[in-house]
């Protein structure tokens, strides 16, 4: 037998490796945390990797999971071997077809990285709520508990499914297994060929639909036959458990790795037994080993085959000595008598007892508990708590573990000091920033150690909820024994802090064990480091006798041409001082890994990394400590005096990374959270921030317009407001005539700026004596932070300009309006958030947002803090996210509800017309509320109305009071990205655009699935490389605007603020004013385009000038005026070359590096299609529709009617 191939991979790769080799077709749709499986399959197929039959599997990305499973169903009917990968909501979208596939007894395995289903909140993390929603479908379910099993059981499931004809859902825990790196032995193709017998494959193919042997499936059956026919499959399900057992035995004979459907581990005479499935089983199993070693009679049954639930096999696994059982469910079924696994166990025990086969005689006491929802930590200490509970005289029948439930008191107390990990494992913790490459380097280190030495290695990575400046924590374990610890490191023998600023507020060395090594990236010289770290951290270092090393990694990175990437440098430090490998051996291994990783990206990249390794060793220094703390710097806190109580009690704790400590009582019961909390976070992630030079500034406000984080703002105000300003506060006379005599200030929020540079690049004002100096210039944050913090606080307190005074709203004027979207966690330089911010500036105090899942829902709603905020009156955007696929429908529903509130209020107004008076009533009902002044007048009318009806005792007056605010027109906006609008939500969007309702749609078009990592959408342009279109997408971008125009009822605009900000503003205003459906498609530069986003606006301009992204507005109201409704607002004759636009972005440019001939073809097609599209628009822009039919009586032309269905 050939030598076993041992590799270090994550669970997704482990499962996908088998799935790809055992499939002819894979149809997928991205969803976290399963996306990587589909991506890997696609990558392998694009590299021509074959399945075990010598073919390259065909990988197709669909428009949704519903689409994916539909195609899977079809491929299966055609007799092919097909797979898919999914999770959570995506799995739920597949359920209807799963019933069909199972009902037709179709051999098929799908791989699920089990993830939480959104309820009161979305969560991308792991639990079993998705798979539990599929119990009724007829799919068999096989659960894997670790990376090796995810690999092995992927193959076993295929064998069983082909042999039994029952489709299988193979699952493992999202993130905890799907993203954990661990060592695994790979199955060879020969082994796979032995596991999956050809005769079964042949039988599957023989069942195919083919006109050569015509058959029919999918009949409609009636009451006379459906029931009996449904029962006809029973024997197939009955056979499954035995087949599973046999195939697992055959697998063991082939590979030496033994699995059983229900595995008992623990004391042979255990009195207390836990029943569990998924990665938690490993934690229980390891804890059981520890406890039995100390004489406790405990055991665990690991459930691998969950459906069909084989009662006999399960019962025979249970020791006869069992007195008490705790069933652990990683899901919640509110209102049920117990969670699903608990109920299954109860049923099994009862049936076994009835049949007289229960080894325990009597049914043991059974308790059921929930654990680990949304990847909540599940540790040996928690397992111990469960066994302790079982040992109590009257254990809780239903419990939770891992949280503190101080409301319903279901939670078990956990002894946090309980620890089963031994000192022979190296446990290393690394704190880094996303942009510095820490995680990538650690993955590299694990592969070096796991693949090149005999040591076992495990890696797990925790990311915070922000996209810009995200803190990453890497948990790495290395040891001589296999590492079965699917939980975070609590005591580390090595701690590395890759970003000095983390020390300001976080006790980085809290988890250090005594004598551990502490490595710090510090900007200070080795003699100065000690006194620059907070006193509390000094104390811990001294008390725990840590060995303290430091390096100025950023300086080394700069010197060696690595930019801000300190990954290689810190990785070298780790190997140099951790002692995991001999130093020379480690350095050689790092260089080998660098060559492997970067070799394909060019020798210069390799050379710079090598240089960084060599320079690192010369700069790493051990830091001398004092016997007692000497620092005058104190560890800061996230809590601020100005915080509202809730923010202080809850949000601040979450900001500090201590959310795990919050009890149940701390939380809203329905997922409703306050807005306006990002302002308390003060993330301080920028190295440099802009500094204003008033003497150079031309007060154009372009910097503020483009700022993705509302971290640079202008204000116009009376000079008297300057009284009491801080010494360094800058102001100048306002230049333009509209507010002549007022004062102007441009102020930076120093602690909220991400340092993206967009504002400086866009600034058009230059010093006449020194052209490189602009009106704003990047300056080291630490040099000006304290001063600017005071300035910003003063600035915020200066009253806003009265909105009603703005008579002309252009791009410059919008920036004098208060943004009600600020400091989001979007990527630095994000191209979407300037649009969202603008929306809130224009309509924020009456804005309702329905937000499709995606980047915009994450940066808007991912806790701990949220960026939508309120004005001085407490008004601001109300925001909600329903799902990815239904946002248009959801938003329409909001509009319908608001409209009915208004209609109700109007009916009530009429009932009180006598008391209200005609003038006010007419004003209230007929005001168009167009423009700031008109809205202000309506608000004044509502105030007046309240006064007038306050004395009325009729209960209907109270009702009118509660509805009165709906008389002020609400602005309903449906926000989302192209994944939603072009793909998964297109059906709903299309329908909403066809209706006459006053909803406004803002599609922030990044031309790719940005949030899930760059998969192609129907918006992806021809020639762009994206996942599932690695060699460049070969088809045109869908023209969503043109489709919407075809209804002739919808306002449609295409905008790009970087090319023409005034045009963007005009489109927003027109869309909002139009009382029917409006669609704005907004060019949004994105990190997935592969260039430094500071030049995002330049690229937008190139996109527009080259004709790739035409600017236009289609206004149905123009039809009645006899004018063409389509106005093209960008050059019809391109002013720039399409190729110049393409070559600036890695997504296009890399295609040339992959396949120059294809690039030439695609770029030529892009040029051609751009010209064709412009030519079409040119024609359309000349068409003025007839306003009469020519028949009598005249009927309004389609599109001419002004719909009046709105809030």
């Amino acid at each position, binding site marked *: 037998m050939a030598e076993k191939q041992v590799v270090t991979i994550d669970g997704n790769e482990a499962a996908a490796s088998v799935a790809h080799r055992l499939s002819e077709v894979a149809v997928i749709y991205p969803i976290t945390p399963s996306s990587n499986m589909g991506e890997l399959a696609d990558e392998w197929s694009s590299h021509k990797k074959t399945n075990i039959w010598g073919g390259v599997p065909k990988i197709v990305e669909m428009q949704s999971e519903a689409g994916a499973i539909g195609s899977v169903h079809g491929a299966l009917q055609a007799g092919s071997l097909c797979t898919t990968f999914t999770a959570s909501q995506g799995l739920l979208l597949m359920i209807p077809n799963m019933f069909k596939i199972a009902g037709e007894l179709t051999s098929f395995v799908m791989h699920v990285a089990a993830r939480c289903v959104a309820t009161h909140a979305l969560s991308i993390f792991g639990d079993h709520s998705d798979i539990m929603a599929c119990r009724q479908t007829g799919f068999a379910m096989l659960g894997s508990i670790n990376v090796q099993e995810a690999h092995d059981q992927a193959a076993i499931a295929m064998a069983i499914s082909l042999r039994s004809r029952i489709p299988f859902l193979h699952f493992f825990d999202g993130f905890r297994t799907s993203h954990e790196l661990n060592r695994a032995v790979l199955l060879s193709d020969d082994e796979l060929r032995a596991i999956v017998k050809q005769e079964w494959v042949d039988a599957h193919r023989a069942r195919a639909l083919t006109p050569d042997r015509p058959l029919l499936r999918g009949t409609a059956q009636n009451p006379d036959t459906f029931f009996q026919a449904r029962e006809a499959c029973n024997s197939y399900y009955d056979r499954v458990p035995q087949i599973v057992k046999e195939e697992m035995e055959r697998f063991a004979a082939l590979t030496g790795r033994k699995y059983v459907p229900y595995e008992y581990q623990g004391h042979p005479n255990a009195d207390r037994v836990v029943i569990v499935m998924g990665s938690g089983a490993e934690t229980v199993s390891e804890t059981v080993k520890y406890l039995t070693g100390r004489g406790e009679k405990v055991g665990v049954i690991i459930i691998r085959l969950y459906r069909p639930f084989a009662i006999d096999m399960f019962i025979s696994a249970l020791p006869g000595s069992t007195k008490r059982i705790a069933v652990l469910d990683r899901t919640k079924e509110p209102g049920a008598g117990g969670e699903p696994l608990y109920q299954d166990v109860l049923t099994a025990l009862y049936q076994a007892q009835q049949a007289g086969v229960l080894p325990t005689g009597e049914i043991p006491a059974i308790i059921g508990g929930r654990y680990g929802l949304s990847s909540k930590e599940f540790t040996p200490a928690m397992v111990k708590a469960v066994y302790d509970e079982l040992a109590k005289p009257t254990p809780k029948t239903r419990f939770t573990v891992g949280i503190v439930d101080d409301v319903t008191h279901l939670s078990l107390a956990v002894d946090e000091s309980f620890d089963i990990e031994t000192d022979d494992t190296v446990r290393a913790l690394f704190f880094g920033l996303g942009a510095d490459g820490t995680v990538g380097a650690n993955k590299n280190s694990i592969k070096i150690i796991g693949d090149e030495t005999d040591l076992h290695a495990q890696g797990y990575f925790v990311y915070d909820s922000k996209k810009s400046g995200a803190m990453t924590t890497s948990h790495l374990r290395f040891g001589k024994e296999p590492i079965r610890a699917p939980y975070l490191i609590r005591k580390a023998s090595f701690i590395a802090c890759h970003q000095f600023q983390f020390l300001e507020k976080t006790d980085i060395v809290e988890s250090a064990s005594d004598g551990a090594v502490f490595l710090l990236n510090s900007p200070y010289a080795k003699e100065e480091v000690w006194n620059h770290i907070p006193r509390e951290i000094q104390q811990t270092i001294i008390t725990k006798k840590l060995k303290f090393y430091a390096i100025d990694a950023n300086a080394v990175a700069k010197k060696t041409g690595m930019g801000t990437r300190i990954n290689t440098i810190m990785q070298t430090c780790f190997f140099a001082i951790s002692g995991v490998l001999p130093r020379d051996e480690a350095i050689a291994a790092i260089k080998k890994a660098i060559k492997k990783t970067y070799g394909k990206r060019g020798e210069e990249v390799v050379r710079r990394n090598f240089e960084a390794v060599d320079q690192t060793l010369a700069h790493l220094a051990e830091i001398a400590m004092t016997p007692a703390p000497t620092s005058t710097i104190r560890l800061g806190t996230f809590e601020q005096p100005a915080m509202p109580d809730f923010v202080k009690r809850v949000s601040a704790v979450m900001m500090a990374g201590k959310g795990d400590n919050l009890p149940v009582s701390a939380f809203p019961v329905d997922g409703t959270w306050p807005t306006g909390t990002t302002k308390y976070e003060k993330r301080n992630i920028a190295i440099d921030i802009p500094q204003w030079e008033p003497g150079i500034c031309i007060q154009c406000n372009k910097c503020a317009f483009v700022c993705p984080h509302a971290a640079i703002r202008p204000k116009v105000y009376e000079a008297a407001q300057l009284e009491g300003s801080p010494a360094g506060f800058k102001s100048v006379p306002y230049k333009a005539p509209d507010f002549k005599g007022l004062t102007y200030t441009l102020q930076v929020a120093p602690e909220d700026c991400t340092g993206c540079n967009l504002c400086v690049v866009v600034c058009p004002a*230059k010093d006449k004596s020194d052209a490189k100096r602009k009106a704003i210039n990047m300056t080291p944050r630490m040099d000006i932070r304290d001063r600017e913090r005071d300035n910003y606080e003063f600035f915020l307190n200066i009253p806003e300009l009265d909105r009603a005074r703005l008579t002309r709203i252009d791009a410059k004027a919008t920036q004098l309006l208060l943004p009600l979207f600020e400091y989001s966690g979007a990527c630095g330089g994000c191209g979407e958030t300037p649009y969202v911010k603008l929306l809130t500036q224009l309509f924020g105090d009456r804005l309702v947002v329905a937000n499709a899942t995606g980047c915009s829902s994450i940066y808007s709603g991912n806790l701990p803090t949220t960026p939508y905020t309120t004005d001085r009156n407490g008004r601001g955007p109300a925001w909600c996210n329903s799902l990815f696929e239904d946002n248009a429908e959801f938003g329409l529903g909001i509009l319908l509800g608001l409209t009915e509130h208004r209609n109700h209020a109007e009916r009530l107004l009429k009932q009180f017309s006598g008391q209200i008076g005609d003038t006010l009533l007419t004003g209230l009902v007929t005001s168009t509320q167009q423009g700031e002044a008109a809205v202000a007048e309506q608000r004044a009318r509502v105030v007046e109305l309240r006064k007038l009806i306050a004395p009325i005792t009729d209960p209907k007056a109270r009702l009118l009071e509660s509805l009165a605010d709906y008389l002020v027109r609400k602005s309903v906006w449906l926000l989302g990205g192209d994944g939603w609008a072009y793909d998964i939500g297109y059906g709903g969007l299309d329908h909403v655009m066809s209706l006459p309702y006053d909803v406004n749609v803002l599609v922030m078009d990044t031309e790719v699935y940005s949030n899930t990592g760059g998969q192609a959408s129907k918006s992806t342009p021809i020639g762009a490389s994206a996942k599932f279109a690695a060699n460049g997408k070969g088809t045109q971008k869908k023209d969503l605007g043109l489709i919407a125009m075809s209804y002739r009822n919808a306002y449609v605009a295409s905008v790009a603020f970087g090319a023409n900000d005034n045009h963007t503003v005009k489109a927003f205003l027109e869309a909002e004013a139009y009382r029917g459906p409006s669609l704005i498609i907004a060019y949004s530069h994105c*990190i997935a385009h592969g260039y430094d986003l500071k030049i995002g606006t330049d690229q937008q301009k190139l996109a527009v000038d080259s004709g790739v992204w035409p600017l236009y507005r289609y206004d149905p109201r123009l039809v009645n005026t006899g004018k063409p409704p389509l106005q093209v607002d960008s050059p019809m004759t391109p002013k720039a070359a399409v190729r110049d636009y393409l070559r600036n972005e890695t997504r296009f440019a890399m295609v040339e590096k992959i396949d*120059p001939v294809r690039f030439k073809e695609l770029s030529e097609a892009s040029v051609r299609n751009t010209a064709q599209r412009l030519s079409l628009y040119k024609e359309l822009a000349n068409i003025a529709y007839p306003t009469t039919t020519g028949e009598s009586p005249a009927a309004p032309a389609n599109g001419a009617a002004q719909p009046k269905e709105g809030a």
Partner: protein
Amino acid sequence: MDISTKYLGFDLESPIIPGASPLTADMDSVRQLEDAGAPMIIMHSIFQEQLEHEEVALNYGLEQGEQSFAEALSYLPLPDQFRLGPDEYLEHVAKIKAAVKVPVVASLNGRTLGGWTEYAKKIEQAGADALELNIYDPVLAAAPDSTSVELATVEVIRAVREAVKLPLAVKLSPFYTSLVHFAHRVDATGVRGLVLFNRFYQPDIDLETLELHRTLKLSTSEELLPRLRWTAALFNHVGADLCITGGVHSVYDVCKSVMVGASAVQVASALLVHGPEHLGVLRKQLYRWLETHEYESLQQMRGSMSLIRTPNPSAFERGNYMKILQTWAPA
């Protein structure tokens, strides 16, 4: 009429060579050039600095945002292999070499000594017949001094000379303190050709935005004049063949160039304006001009107006400059 010449050791049917331009980047136009009578193909330059920049930019584009956010651990697909700058260029050398019968001269601009020799070796392996070293290094800082700059350049040339067996040509800048002296030093390294002169990208200023703009203007015959002067000065003083590039547009420019001593001329701007077929037109015109003026061969004409042979050598020198100024009077 024999219009053949010898350049870099190759016997060329004509002295009119298509110089480096976008025309050599496209296989169709390369074939058109050969059909039009190109005696040799000079390829566009491979710029080490640009290649390194492209590699670093590609890596940046791929790495940006990677491993930062749980839902998106990367944003772009990672192909098995990228065909990076040198590979593309080298493949292009091989393609041209396979497509044409005439000698193919690659062109290189290095950044580091190691880069110069490494890329030169790769170009040799790719099958180029000769190599033109494109010395393009405008020194804008106060240091190093002119001697150091010249020494470093000669060192590069020597290193490449030792690294490869290919005939080498060196494309000179017009900006040397003592061009003839420097040319001698270069000549002493054993190069086979000197090309006069490099044309640089000249940045221009946008008065509204206060930004610099890169400009590339096609040459005109006006630019030929300094090249005539310095070729005339070098003729018979160096062993290397002389080649004029920059400002050769008409048959008259070709004749003048040969008269001052050029073995060959490179034409680029004229071909970009008139198309590859213009090469054939120039060739025919040269043939006719020589016949009309009763030359026996091109060789007879070569160097006839060089500094050592011209009837009024002072015209190439400062004296002539003085004379023109003194004789000029307002109309």
